């Protein structure tokens, strides 16, 4: 079983569009959307079942019990994240200025968006008025039918710690796939280079970087390569929308050659692709130039992924077998 992760560094390069196409082409039995901040893969992968939903709990958030609070102000003074404020009315709508003594009628409140769940306020409160309460930070979704498993999640607005949610998404996929030997799992990664990306790198056998031929795209591609290199996984690069700037595309190719990274293909900008996506389909569901190009990139990816001839049948061949058995999807 091989795990392919698709990353880009920069947003909007086409990760999800390409991931969707790969999933279609490979009849992937297990795939996941690790872009938990802004998941999109579910929009173009047809699901015929309702998802199983699970609350995801992040770090707990502090809660102040108004009844016990004496207004000593220790919590506010010790909060490094400015998450505690004092309000001068019962409704907690008007912020008071610096409160320097035990003052009744003032209300202390925790801003749940700024609270990092460190527990310092709970520790310093002399009357035990503060407790750390579990906080729902997102929702996991699992789509499972007899043929495949799709795991995804949505991080709740303003939550941090999406690295753990990404790990949960992958774990959920793995547990649901269970004992079925899946040849290939595909992970649609998230943009950036931070926590969620690093969490999605764990367990990946190969990373396909989708680059965009713009100055921003090249800069971001370099940063993501640096991040991925730390994980000693195979890395390959392809350029999407390559004809929007062929000079930059060539720069990317040259960079890959210099870094000894396989450059495995170019996909043209294609307005038909937009139409397919807006119809909630993948670019290989219709006949279009980007669809044809992505098929070639897919073939190269699979070759690289299953390299080292361990006697495993490449997924590409299994597509042909499925077609022969009349199992190809419409």
């Amino acid at each position, binding site marked *: 079983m091989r795990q392919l992760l698709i990353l880009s560094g920069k947003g909007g390069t086409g990760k999800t569009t390409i991931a969707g196409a790969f999933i279609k082409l490979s009849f992937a039995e297990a795939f996941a959307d690790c872009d938990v901040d802004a998941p999109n893969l579910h929009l173009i992968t047809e699901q015929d079942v309702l998802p199983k939903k699970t609350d995801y*709990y*992040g*770090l707990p958030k502090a809660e102040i019990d108004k009844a016990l609070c004496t207004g000593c102000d220790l919590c506010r003074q010790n909060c490094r994240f400015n998450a505690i404020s004092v309000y001068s009315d019962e409704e907690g709508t008007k912020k008071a200025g610096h409160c320097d003594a035990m003052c009744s009628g003032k209300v202390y409140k925790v801003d749940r968006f700024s609270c990092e*769940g460190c527990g310092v306020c709970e520790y310093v409160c002399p009357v035990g008025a503060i407790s750390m309460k579990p906080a729902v930070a997102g929702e996991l979704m699992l789509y499972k039918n007899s043929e495949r498993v799709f795991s995804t999640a949505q991080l709740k607005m303003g939550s941090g*710690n999406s*690295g*753990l949610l990404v*790990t949960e998404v992958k*774990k959920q996929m*793995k547990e649901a796939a269970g004992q079925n030997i899946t040849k290939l799992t595909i992970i649609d990664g998230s943009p950036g280079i*931070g*926590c969620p990306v*690093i*969490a999605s*790198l*764990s*367990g990946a056998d190969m990373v396909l970087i989708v680059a965009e031929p713009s100055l921003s795209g090249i800069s971001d591609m370099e940063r993501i390569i*640096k*991040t991925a290199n*730390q*994980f*000693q996984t195979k890395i390959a690069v392809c350029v999407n929308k390559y004809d929007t700037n062929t000079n930059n595309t060539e720069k990317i190719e040259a960079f890959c050659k210099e870094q000894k990274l396989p450059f495995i293909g170019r996909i043209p900008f294609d307005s038909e692709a937009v139409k397919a996506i807006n119809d909630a389909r993948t670019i290989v569901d219709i006949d279009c130039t980007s669809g044809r190009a992505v098929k070639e990139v897919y073939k190269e990816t699979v070759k690289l992924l299953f390299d080292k001839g361990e006697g495993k049948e490449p997924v590409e061949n299994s597509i042909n077998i499925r077609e022969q058995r009349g199992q190809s999807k419409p």
Partner: protein
Amino acid sequence: MKIAIPVDEKSMGTNVCVSFGRTPYFLIYDTESKESSFINNSAASSSGGAGIKAAQTIVDSKADVLLTPRCGENAAAVIKAAGIKIYKTTGVFVNDNIDAFIAGKLPVLEEIHAGLHDHGGR
């Protein structure tokens, strides 16, 4: 000698867990008394630094050796500071790995990967 292994379930026939830091349980197997016990890994639900907390659990369990498929650099730092050696598991079954280790067939784990919360990239 006590061997620690990250496992998916609390049973001897179970699989080695692919993740060290977020494994649900650890198996502690005593090669002399042939006794095994399972400990919960409280780090599994941590938002970050799971490897470190899991490693602390292993150290506190007085294990001499850790068998695992992979290990992050922060967890490895903790394990090594305690003088515990890390070996790389092969294949999926716990029993096979214990046997292989006792027979001296498991390699030392060389590839320590960057921590999953973040890493030492400078």
